[in-house]
């Protein structure tokens, strides 16, 4: 139940990155990516941009749901009107690593493709989107700049804790 969230700009450049774990059912909010494969997360997200570019033209929705799967990692996407992509990589841990969240197999964290998870991720994205819009409305923010606002980060953290 580890998550890696990134906001990708129009030039494949990351504007914002945040790694966290689930806070539901006793989770402590820390991500549990293994050290050997942690570097792959960025590759996985970057490569799922290929799929995003394909799927974004098929639907009029901003929320694209789960678009890609790589071994045990699932990638969901939300695309904004400005072709900025929010990508969330979730990796359900099926080993005994979780403190107890894995016991309940219907939890969001363990079931990345269930409708509840989709709903939760959608809510997460929507909240992040609202904050994102506020962040980019700042007159000092230019296109494809990194989002350095600490308030934005705090809001994302809070959204993660609330929904995921």
């Amino acid at each position: 139940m580890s998550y890696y969230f990134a906001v990708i700009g129009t030039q494949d450049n990351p504007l914002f990155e945040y790694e966290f774990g689930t806070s539901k059912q006793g989770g402590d909010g820390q991500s549990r990516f293994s050290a050997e494969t942690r570097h792959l997360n960025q590759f996985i997200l970057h490569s799922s941009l290929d799929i995003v570019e394909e799927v974004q033209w098929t639907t009029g929705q901003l929320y694209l749901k789960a678009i890609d799967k790589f071994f045990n990692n699932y990638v969901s996407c939300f695309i904004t009107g400005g072709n900025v992509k929010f990508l969330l990589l979730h990796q359900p841990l099926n080993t005994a690593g979780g403190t107890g969240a894995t016991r309940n197999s219907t939890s969001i964290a363990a079931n990345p493709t269930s409708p509840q998870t989709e709903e939760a991720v959608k809510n997460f994205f929507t909240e992040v989107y609202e904050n994102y819009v506020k962040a980019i409305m700042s007159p000092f923010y230019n296109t494809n700049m990194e989002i350095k606002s600490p308030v934005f980060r705090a809001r994302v953290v809070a959204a993660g804790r609330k929904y995921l």
Partner: protein
Amino acid sequence: MAGSVFGGAPGLGKSLLDSGTDSPSDPLNLILKSFVPHISIYGSPDVDELVGEKGFRGGLWELLRPFGERIQGKVTIRDSNGAARSWEDFAVRFTRFGEGVEEPSPTEKSADAVVQVERVVERHLRYAEDSYMGLEEEAEATSPYYALYLRRLLSGIPLASHESFAHPVACVIAISSRCEAPIEALRRLYAETTQGDKKLPVWVDGEYLRYYVLVHDEEKSDITKSMALFDQMKRHFGLHCHLLRIRSSEAAETDDDSIPLPRSDWMTPAEELADIERSDRQEDFEDPTRHIFGSDATAIRTFVREMVTQSVIPTMERNVSLWNDQVASRRRGLSGRFMSLSKRFTFGGSSRSSITPGSGSTNYDALGFYRPETPEAIMRRLADFAFMLRDWKLAMSTYDLLRTDFQNDKAWRYHAAANEMAALALLIMPQNMSSKTRIETINQMLEQAFYSYHTRCSSLYGAIRCTILALELLRLRGGSGIDEAVRWGIRVLEARLMGPVGDALLRERMAICYASKSGAGSQAWGSRRRKSAMWSVLSAEAWIVQAKYVQGQRCLKDARKMYALLPGECGVQKFGVASDFLAHLNDQLKEGLRVEYAPREDESDEEEEEPELLVDEESETLDARKARRTSLIAPGAGGGGAALETAPLTPMKPGLEEEKGPDGFG
């Protein structure tokens, strides 16, 4: 995940073969050249002696083997509807009689096969590392190591009960002109192949074609006597005879008429390993290439062509139509479907007539295989013959029938094999249904084949073979087939079916799969460049872990090239961790390559062996510097791309041997 929006359905109505594959190491060609009619060779002792005088200790088989790998000229095949098609690239496989038998309930033998393949490819890779010269490589074609891997995986199809590809379609019974009592000898050989302890197992159909060859020694025997004998043979045995005239002396390299015999492409991994080990152990190097006279080569080529086009293929066609009429078409009609239902309700019939197929289940349960007279075995042979004769529709429909039969009988090996071949035939043949439905059917078949092989039978070889071949064909189909191909590749990687070498090769293959997907529109929407680059990075990592730095460097270069194609800025460079990782890989590579490169600085202008691997074979034959132990091509012996795929073992100049000493040969 939604199927590709932009992926068209290429090949709708076209067979995969029509889309044109010219490179001999292309997987489709490899597949076609491995599922070919197997012809056993059984010679009398005097033939072996004659051939031994020419320098071939393995008997007539060793002499004939390279010539079967490409039949000269066009071969015309009539399919079940009577339509004739001619093929340029027909091949057969010559085997020694009785070789490669796998019992119906093997335990771990299939794992050995895969392990051996890994070892062979690993040896070649190691030599490549050792002989790294710091040169650039052109990486457009199929990686030669992957082609080698596939070749070795497919080269030793075991003579098993559940698939009849390796069952001999014909048997060459050979005597020489030195034989004292020829007709007697021929009768004896025939008897030895049919009865006695040398004969093939009971589950092999004994009704294969017998082809009689009289090997005439040009230099020592009398031609009139041989002609008379040959006429006598023709009278006794019918038209399936041939008089092969060869010289019995050994051809030396210096003879003006001699040509080198090409190394066989399709050696089994066990044989190649034995070869490598033997040459490693030898102190002074003797060139393993044999030479034969040009006249011999012509005679053999003509013999093979005549045998195949005038005896083997007509016999196969006849059998196909016979079995089709007798057995399969009964099953295909409406009544046929009821027959399979009724079979389940009849209790162990001992009747084995072709009309009531009530015998299958009893036979399988008792013995673990189907006897060759049962309808299921006949249909399997029919399907395999059709596949070998490239009649995809007939093959696919027969395999389809067999799938349900074997499932009902719980004959899991047979079930897995039938599903595998059905999927492959379906992938090759021209299709009229949409790619979506076809891919679903294929996925279902592959799923069943994989499950049966992997879980029910623990056959590693079967599981790997079916997924890898299907993966290749799916890739060639293009469109949404590419995503499916990668999905299957990930299945294999996840299940850890292959060893480290296979793993890394497969990852490279995933990168190539994705690279072959072209998108639509100005921004190439629907292409998979980033994914391809990611897989290249993963494969580079896998290679570096095994210390195969040359391969790792190539993969990293591919990744960089792919990233450079992207419209945005340099790929993952903006991602901190990812670009750190790439830099780290780069450092490891430099480190690894530098260590190897240092002692070799004195030969910086060595021959370009690495790019030569992928260069067209014609230029290799013109290369005057004969590198030791490189795979050889005989100009004109129709070797056809032989050298490309078997990578050179130690590409070093003969003059520098003394300098190299012990470390030169790994």
